């Protein structure tokens, strides 16, 4: 069953056709990668999923519900979490607090004046946050202020924050950008591992071919705002159009 269904999405910025009649279908429980050269419209597309941008035409359906015309927090409450390209975390707060906030948001909804209980007495939330931190490997740093983390740890923290919400769909924007080979491999392992038992669907935007082919169940190739191919990794590898649009370019470079 398709959990995310994108139909005929168009988006123009002035004279630029950023998204050109994009169709996409993401199956429940799979890892779906979106690749494409710079400026192909990958980030624009992702922004349309989370309410940052509204497409000019077309529809984005998540679990049978439209994600257009609703605000980011409503999209998140529906079960879509996003990891940003530059980690968006609460830099002044501790790692544990960073993960407890999404846990509270998942439990209490988008707004609740929950002013009486003490955070440190919220054992359930705390345990949940700690289990996610364990899973992601940040448990021993729980009392460190987030701004002090390394870049890689910040990104892992952001993943933990998203996972803490038990999302149905996890969107990742270039999760390995700027990482060393070793860190990249660690992230690949992590992405394979996390949320697998819970069947979290993941959509990954990625530049790095190595990452994409070792992770993705299905790959969509975007070029100049249009999806030129959407298929299994092995078919994508041999697809001449993809070679021309993307791999060819890289080979030239």
């Amino acid at each position, binding site marked *: 069953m398709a959990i995310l269904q994108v139909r005929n999405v168009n988006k123009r910025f002035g004279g630029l056709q950023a998204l050109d009649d994009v169709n996409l279908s993401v199956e429940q429980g799979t890892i779906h990668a979106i690749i494409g050269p710079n400026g192909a419209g990958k980030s624009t597309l992702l922004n349309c999923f989370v309410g940052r941008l509204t497409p000019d035409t077309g529809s984005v359906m998540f679990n049978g519900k439209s994600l257009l015309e609703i605000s980011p927090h409503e999209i*998140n*409450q529906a079960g879509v979490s996003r990891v*940003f390209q530059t980690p968006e975390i609460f*830099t002044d707060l501790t790692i544990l607090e960073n993960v407890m906030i999404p846990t*509270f948001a998942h439990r209490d909804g*988008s707004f609740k004046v929950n002013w*009486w209980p003490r955070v440190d007495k919220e054992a359930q939330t705390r345990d949940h946050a700690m289990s996610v931190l364990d899973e992601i490997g940040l448990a021993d740093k729980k009392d460190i202020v987030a701004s002090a983390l390394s870049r890689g740890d910040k990104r892992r923290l952001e993943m933990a924050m998203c996972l803490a919400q038990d999302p149905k769909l996890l969107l990742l924007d270039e999760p390995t950008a700027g990482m060393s080979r070793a860190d990249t491999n660690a992230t690949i392992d992590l992405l394979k591992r996390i949320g697998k038992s819970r069947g979290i669907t993941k959509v990954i935007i990625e530049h790095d071919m190595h990452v994409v082919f070792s992770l993705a169940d299905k790959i969509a190739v975007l070029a100049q705002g249009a999806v030129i191919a959407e298929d299994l990794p092995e078919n994508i590898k041999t697809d001449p159009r993809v070679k021309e649009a993307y791999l060819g370019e890289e080979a030239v470079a």
Partner: protein
Amino acid sequence: MKILTHPTSSVDSTMMFIFVAAVLTMPIWLTPIGAAYPDLMQRFVIFGLFATGFNILFGLTGYLSFGHAAFLGIGSYTAVWSFKLLGMNPIPAAIFAVTVSGVFALVIGYISLRRSGIYFSILTLAFAQMCYAIAYSDLIGKFLGINLTNGETGLRVLADDPRMLDGVLTSGIDTSALTVNLFGLDLTHTWVWNGFQFNAGFYFCAFVLIIASYIAMRIFRSPFGLMLKAVKTNQNRLNYTGVNTKPYTLAAFVISGMYAGLAGALLCITDPLAGAERMQWTASGEVVLMVILGGMGTLMGPMLGAGIIKFSEQKFSTWGKPELHEFLAFIPDGIRDTVVSVASLFVGSGWHLTLGLVFMLIVIFLPGGIVEGGRRILMIVTGSNRRNRQIQAAAQAAE
């Protein structure tokens, strides 16, 4: 790397206990430094309350309002109207003041919070200046044909006001003196014991402050408070975490407005008079100073800041050259005159100069305020910095 350890509930209980004891014994321990006048102590407590409330907005969410004095003034006007209509009991006055200022805060906050950053600051400033102009010239009163704020003279209780509940709540007690009384207990009354002055009004205000501080502490430690802190650090992330930040900031705004209104009502206890100057933007600026000086985002900082500013105001603004000569008597005669004439710039009517300078120094060198300064000193003394570094080293080794 910075490690944050949060106070546990037992630490907080101890702190709260010390705080309550300190507030209740103020008439005793403030006597040696000459600050134990009922009037001054009441101001410590009231402005401490005002600053604590302001800190819930500014300290937690980072939204800098330049118009909170408006709520202080609204609280005062409402309290005086309650005195006029219902009688001289402070409890209905406080309840009405909190309600009315809360409603105003809801409206002003709803509009102002559509913008953030400097736009928010200017919007709140504009609203406060508007409230000031309306109160100063009693524009609404003129419009309705009644005497709502009594313009520049200020609103006060008159002998022929209805004061409907006065006879009911305080039967047999003469209330014609028009002083505020708690079910017959005159709040301007002062008991003297061994030279210490225990004022009824002060204890009423202190009681209110203790409750309000306890509520503030609960807010600080609660999931709600955590969300407000998250608004300050990264509002964008919070939105993408499924949190609707608007009602959170609005709730903080309304709560801080209610605190300000309550403080405004308490200001009318010693003197049931409400004037428009209480709403001027300088008054809004003062509460910002208090919170910054003490330490924004800390529990005790704002109260400390309010106390220091009100204390220094009282002391420095009454000093002149004779006092300075006496104070600086240890300096040799020759240079003392020069020193005194320079120092006299900073006292008396020049006290605001001192305030401005101290404020600048704090913002430049110690943005965390006095509490942060104290924490740093404590760290040096106890060497906990070294301990933290060891923990970090261990954490890194484990990685």
